[in-house]
């Protein structure tokens, strides 16, 4: 009986469960972010070197050590932020909530990165426009929520700004900057990444959402 259960087990540990779940989700998202950062960075590195310098393994970690953790942290934040915003806005994301769709989304994201790294474009404007179209297409195909779009755009702008500042301060540099100090396709990549990580985060949150719901029902 429900009332009795409430009486008997007031000390139900929903809060603890939420925290643990949040941590697990964050850790998952972090590792996904780190992995994608490493792999995609590799794509970018290859852009300049068609034939491989002898140290193959070191080129995997060719970026600075702080890049993958930063990407991981950012992706964890984004992945947690998306379901949070969904629940705050009160419009749960219902569009294509399944893992196969998420996988498709990730594949398209890697594909966008691939295109940005490997495909030879006539000029940078064309490259940026194509990538922008692809990113918006990604959003339309896999997200279609206004909150997702807004968050994606704002985070992409913020990340671009941060990168500009980093490059300006000489932390690292792009070989051929065409948009102030960075590459002009960077915002598109950021946007697509935000959408992808948000998709993963939402899918992960789906499990927790169900779990919490059941937990509260049980108590």
């Amino acid at each position, binding site marked *: *009986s*429900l*009332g*009795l259960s*409430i*009486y*008997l087990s007031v000390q139900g540990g929903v809060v603890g469960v939420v925290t643990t779940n949040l941590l697990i989700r964050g850790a*998952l998202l972090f590792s996904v972010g780190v*992995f994608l950062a490493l*792999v*995609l960075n*590799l*794509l970018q*590195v*290859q852009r300049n070197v*068609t*034939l*491989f*310098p*002898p*140290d*193959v*393994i070191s*080129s*995997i970690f060719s970026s600075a050590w702080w890049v993958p953790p930063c990407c991981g942290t950012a992706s964890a934040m984004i992945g947690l932020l998306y379901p949070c915003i969904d629940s705050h806005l009160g419009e749960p994301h*219902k*569009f*294509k*909530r*399944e*893992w*196969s769709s*998420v*996988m*498709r989304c990730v*594949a398209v994201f*890697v*594909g966008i990165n*691939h*295109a940005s790294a*490997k*495909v*030879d*474009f*006539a000029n940078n404007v*064309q490259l940026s*426009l*194509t990538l922008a*179209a692809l990113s918006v*297409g990604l959003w339309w195909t896999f997200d279609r929520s206004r909150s997702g779009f807004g968050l994606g755009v704002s985070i992409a702008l913020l990340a671009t700004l941060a990168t500009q500042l980093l490059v300006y301060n000489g932390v690292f540099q792009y070989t051929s900057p065409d948009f102030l100090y960075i590459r002009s396709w960077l915002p598109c990549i950021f946007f697509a990444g935000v959408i992808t990580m948000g998709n993963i985060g939402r899918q992960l949150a*789906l*499990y927790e*959402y*169900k*779990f919490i*719901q*059941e*937990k509260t*029902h*049980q108590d």
Partner: protein
Amino acid sequence: MTLREQLREKISAAFYRHGLLCASYPVPIILFTSASILTCCYPLLRLPLPGTGPVEFTTGVRDYSVPSHEPQGDLGERPDWYRGPPVAYIQQVLVKAAVSPWDSSLVTVDVFRSPLGRAFSLLEEIRNHVHSDSSGVRSLETLCLQVTDLFPGLRRMQSVLPEHGCLLVSPGNYWQNQRELFDSDPDLLKTIQKHEPQRPAHLDLLFGVPGKYTGVSHYNKKKVVTYTMTLVLSRYDARFLGSLRARLKQLHPSANCSLRDDHMVHVHFKEEIGIAELIPLVTTYIILFAYIYFSTRKIDMVKSKWGLALAAVVTVLSSLLMSVGLCTLFGLTPTLNGGEIFPYLVVVIGLENVLVLTKSVVSTPVDLEVKLRIAQGLSNESWSIMKNMATELCIILIGYFTLVPAIQEFCLFAVVGLVSDFFLQMFFFTTVLSIDIRRMELADLNRRLPAEAGLPPPKPGPLRTREAPPPPRPSPHTITLQTPAFRNLRLPKRLRVVYFLARTRLAQRIIMVGTVIWIGILVYTDPAGIRTYLAAQVSDQSPLGDPGGGGLPPHLGVAPVFRGGDPTSTLGINPAPAPTPIPDNQSQGHHGSSRVGPLPEAPPPSVPQITWGAEDEEGWRRLSFRHWPSLFSYYNITLAKRYISILPVIPVTVHLSPQEAIETRHPQDTKHPPPSIPKVAADIQTDLTLYKVAALGLAAGVLLVLLLFCLYRVLCPRNYGQNGVTHGRRRRGDLPCDDYGYSPPVSEISPLLLRGHSMDIECLASDGMLLASCCLAGQIRVWDAQTGDCLTVIPNHGLRRSSSSGCWEQRDGWESVSGAAETECLGSEAHGSSISGDGLSEGEGYPLRRRTAPSRPTLFTDQPDLTPLIDTNFADQPPSHLCTPPREGFDFGGLVERAYMEHEPPSPSAYPSPSSASSSPPSGAQLQRRPSLGDSSAFLTQDRASTAGTQATADWESSVWAMELRGNLIAAGRSSGKLELWDAVEGSLRCINEDGVSGITALAFLNNRIVAARLNGSLDFFTVEINKPLGLLQYRGAPGRGSMPPSPCYSSEDVISCQLTRSVQCAHQKPITVLRAAAGRVVAGSQDHTVRVYRLEDSCCLFTLQGHSGGITAIYIDQTMVLASGGQDGAICLWDVLTGSRVSHVYGHRGDVTSLVCTTSCVISSGLDDLICIWDRSTGIKLYSIQQEVGCGASLGVISESLLVTGGQGCVSFWDLNFGDLLQTVYLGQSSDGQGVRQLLVLDNAAIICDFGSELSLVYVPSVLEKLD
């Protein structure tokens, strides 16, 4: 809009016809499709096989001319890449040198010091060679490939590789091509080794032969040193090269050297994929596999899940192949790296359509003919398929206009792939699907036939677990139950093995492991992959440490310079006298006869033999195929998609005299450490390399397995349970109705939704005919358990008050309507009148007979505020409440007066329910005075005051904690300790008992006794007494015939009183949590870890059962005196009720046992770990377990001996208890996702009442009903 509709209809009709066609002629269509696939793939045969290995093409040297850029049609055998000049011409001078005759006074260093020293003079020779003829003077400088800086980042190679000048590589580079440095080098090997480890090794690079063939080591038994001088030329000048060859041959003649020198080999290099490029590729493939896995996992309800998944993948793959083939046919050669874009193409084309088709077809009514099912399924999805395809084509078209060649090509492939994919879906996949569905039905038939004949059924396939229950009858309300013959637990061994295989999903796991191994092999065998990397590492580590047979088995000590089997190479070369340098290094087109010649002298056994074999002819083949690309890449020259021409090698044989060797000695050479120590070191080094490689491989393997395991755990964390054999089940989230907008097949069992409660339902009670539910708001509703009609609403007083007057007006109107229908006394007609009443009471706050119209106030849709409803202050109930006259709360006076004036004064028997049958047909006047069903009890109490004299007042303040329903009486135990008896049909309060003050936590109602367990651990036994005891609790006829329950046999004038017969004050030390009564026993389980068994008649405590180490959470007892208890410790105890002894004791769950049910053969338990375990009752062995969805663990029930029903996320699932097969999942409604079934009640007539949130659902299982009959 109409155009759109027309289009839609046309498409739908076309698809329908197409589906009919496909299902009618499956074999011809599949043959046709296969033929077209093969035809379209035929052009692929002409494409070169994918791979990154270099390709060779051999031409003659004599008539060689630089190929032109334009493709020449007639030269058919010429490869496409053989156009234009090569990047470079490679001329190798292969030097074999030996000190001869070998003198015992020589030390090991002499084996290679003087031969290497000879390299410098040869180098001079080559560098200074000038050929002049009529066309001019040419030297090496004019012909060679001039290189500039080394690639940035390779600074440490600066010391060994030439910069700013001719690319001429020789071992002399170790000493900057300076003889002085060489001579003063105390330890040559150290210098050479200094640059290890490099990829590919400098040794290979500078010596031009693989390290182990060089012979530069202390353990060279052959005592022959081999190295090359590699000249890289940018232009080909036959005459210069010819003169150089002649000159070198003249200087160092190689007798008996039969190396052919009339062929040059052109080597074309593909774009190379290194490990670093492989990683993104592997990542995309992993994502692709995950995508395919998650997509095909959704295929369900078909005969062969794997077969269809395979068909889906085949569809996509062959459409891709077709697209490439077609593009090739029309002259578009793929320039993109196929392996790279392939995953993206698959993702773009996608498996969605295939899945949508499958879902659509399997969701058609199963009783239709296969043809029609296919056709219907196709036509249902036709619009969305066409729409999707149009959208994708549009997107690709947009992509085509980006005007980027790579993207355009990709789009082209994608378009052709999409179209061919559509073609294959329509013809291939649809047909396969039709075959599958036909097979399913055939299999179903096969299974049913012998069962009807009473024979043992044929062996079911191992895929049975995943298969949907094919309903054998066309009736829309059926669930497949296997015949009893098939349902015995004692299976033959053969079958058990099959079931074991099916349960453990062995095939699935094997395929998974196979896939992993396959990927591993793929990575390993990739020419640019790990293997060559490792092999290169091993071989490069070994040369200097290669002991050459020092103690290792012969296959490790490789020195295959001498090949015994080769007849041409066995001829010995006699040592030549020390050649004197020819001062004239300028060939003038003529040469004198060679001054040195072979001397016919038998070589002493110790004389090193220099032999030339066929393997020397193209010695570069023994080098890593990455040798040339890496050499060029050091100068930032790529060989990808270009070619080099390798000219025939110039053999040079050098014989040195021992004197010369001794002269060139460095003073330190004689003080060289004895060979044994470096040998051991070398051994260790080799071993270490091997170990390193092995450890690396092992670590990589472990990492791969871990990664896959993590991925598996992360992605499908709940699919397989932890304990024993478990079963995956479909989740709500996986259903296509979320994504594709159509519902799963629910045709077989349609649940009834009972709506009306505004808050979550807390208590459920039923006696088979009626169903009482109580929500958190305190409202009790009584439903007809068969039709789902709401019969009575007993609202909570406090909540009800605000809208009472309005309701009363409405109800008066409704009364007159029902009065008009008074003559119809049969249940069905009464039901009809209730519908008419429904319409009138539309505006009420609490609709009376609505079961579909949602009436939940929006206020409560979210999270209800439960705090005011929970009364935890049990000891201090306001007594004023009990004395409050009922009229104070309401103003019924006028209404009652009016009713009295309109109608005759009511007789006491004037309250039959509208659903009451004609067992006691009342008079018309009586019927006219029909009170509203949902009216307040106060109204009735007011009546009762005169008739029965019962002063019963409902306690509205406290919440209902326990409720039971027997006969027509609802017993409700409240948190205030009051026990109320309500008339279920009329909704009137018949009796109230206020003897106890502690909240009633559990109730048991058996015969005419009520047992109430209280929060303070006491147990109260009540007796319900009626002045007409025969009639009251007699069961109302046989169940299940009519749609309405028969009328109760007692009439309203019966005085019902509830007497406390005995109160066991300290039945338990702690609150009683469960109370069950059956077979004349009352069993109470408490938080004090004990179970007590009482006799119902005399309230005597028979046993105290101790055995749990936690509070009791679940108890099961039935008529056969089976007693099972489960506790918070996760333990399940089976007890003998007659003796009080414990029969068995198992630990089944992590966390509380939430629910327990026993059948004759097994015990079913569920726990907080959301696992349902099925135990063998006699042995206590767990048969299997079912992983439930989170939070739905407690809801389970047994319908028959072998049919288990469990609740899930908005659904109930039926399981075959004997095998643990999921028979069917019934979804309770679209709106209920996210809501789990919390309580599940199996009624006698096999209806299932489940409670999710504020709604009840009534699921009928009519076939079970028949079975029970």
